[in-house]
């Protein structure tokens, strides 16, 4: 081994290269390509020896380095000496670009980052019919929702769906029936016997509809913090 390094985890080949350049104390614009390539390959061997999975990205860089190394070894031709680009040029360019961006990333984290250094008002205002289970929608939410819908179609391993589909209308009738018998009911009790998510959703939508249309009143008990339901006559 010609160099020693503590085994660090590098995010990618560019990180490893930068590290090697740093410990060799060489300039990025004048990389001793033979040395760096050898050390790079040694490092990959070390990773393999330690049974660390070497990602394909590292191998691509290895072959690039070896290619540059072989090009550098070619005898220079007098006539096109001026014209030919330094074979290291390509790698210097990406390293420089990468360093710039790492630098910018450092600068970004040095700002007053929301939720880390500074905080905004933490209010959650409840309102109207869409009180519960509300999310601010982004395109990602949209896709996520779609995936969930598709998954719902195929009975999952964890969730058991009964054959019937739940109708909000039926659930509304059911809630009214229960409230006529019991006068009032804890919200949690309404859902306690339900196993399927779709039944819960249907029940919930039914409840919202009943509240909205003024058939059911939702309130919080004085003593307990549980939400109670009662029928409005």
């Amino acid at each position, binding site marked *: 081994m010609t160099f020693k390094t503590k085994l660090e985890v590098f995010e990618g080949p560019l990180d490893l290269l930068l590290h090697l350049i740093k410990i060799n104390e060489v300039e990025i614009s004048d990389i001793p390509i033979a040395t760096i390539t050898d050390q790079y390959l040694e490092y990959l061997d070390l990773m393999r020896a330690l049974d660390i999975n070497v990602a394909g990205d590292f191998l691509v860089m290895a072959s690039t380095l070896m290619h540059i190394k072989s090009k550098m070894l070619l005898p220079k031709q007098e006539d096109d000496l001026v014209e030919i680009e330094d074979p290291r040029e390509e790698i210097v360019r990406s390293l420089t670009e990468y360093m710039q961006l790492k630098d910018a990333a450092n600068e970004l984290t040095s700002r007053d980052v929301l939720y880390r250094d500074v*905080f905004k008002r*933490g209010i959650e205002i409840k309102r109207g019919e*869409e009180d519960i289970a509300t999310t601010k929608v982004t395109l990602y*939410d*949209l896709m996520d*929702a*779609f995936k969930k*819908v598709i998954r719902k179609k195929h009975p999952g391993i964890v969730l058991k769906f009964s054959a019937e589909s739940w109708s909000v209308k039926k659930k509304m009738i059911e809630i009214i029936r229960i409230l006529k018998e019991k006068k009032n009911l804890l919200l949690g009790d309404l859902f306690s016997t339900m196993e399927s998510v*779709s039944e819960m*959703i249907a029940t919930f939508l039914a409840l919202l509809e009943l509240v909205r249309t003024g058939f059911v009143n939702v309130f919080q008990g004085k003593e307990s913090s549980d939400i109670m339901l009662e029928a409005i006559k």
Partner: protein
Amino acid sequence: MDNYLKLIVESLLFASSEPLTPRQIRDLLPGKDLIEIKKVLKELKDEYETMKRSFLIKEVAEGYQFRSLPKFKPYIANMLMSTQSRLSKAALETLTIIAYKQPIIRQEIERLRGVEVGGILKMLLKKGLIRIVGRKPLPGRPIIYGTTKKFLEVFDLKDLSSLPTLKEIEELGDGEEG
């Protein structure tokens, strides 16, 4: 009076979504006792009353909380209606089905979601996110739904073909954290 302690307590009230009790605040500030905290809360409360701003600190059943003055309620209510257009999960699911499967009829949406969607369709129509495209030549001539231009605007999409496919999302792999 320990002014810095007062500001600390104020910052906690500022950032909390729930009312804070003196006990909760004490537990966050080692070395401070309940009497001190209560005194500070009282002072803060008085300060905001004198400052005559649009909000003050109120003592509600469960603790202390910043509250806007009732007279600004209409403006705030208005804002919450307009700026934060939030959709329920159910509405979002329905909208997604329409976006990906359009043109689509209600029965098909209900088959996919497993629940009735009449109310949601009405709401989405009202919000201008979906529209009636036509009627299907089937018994009962069911209404066909599609998304609107506003839908594209809200989701920041150039056109419908910019909607990523499910496959593309899967291909992104697992969102690793760390």
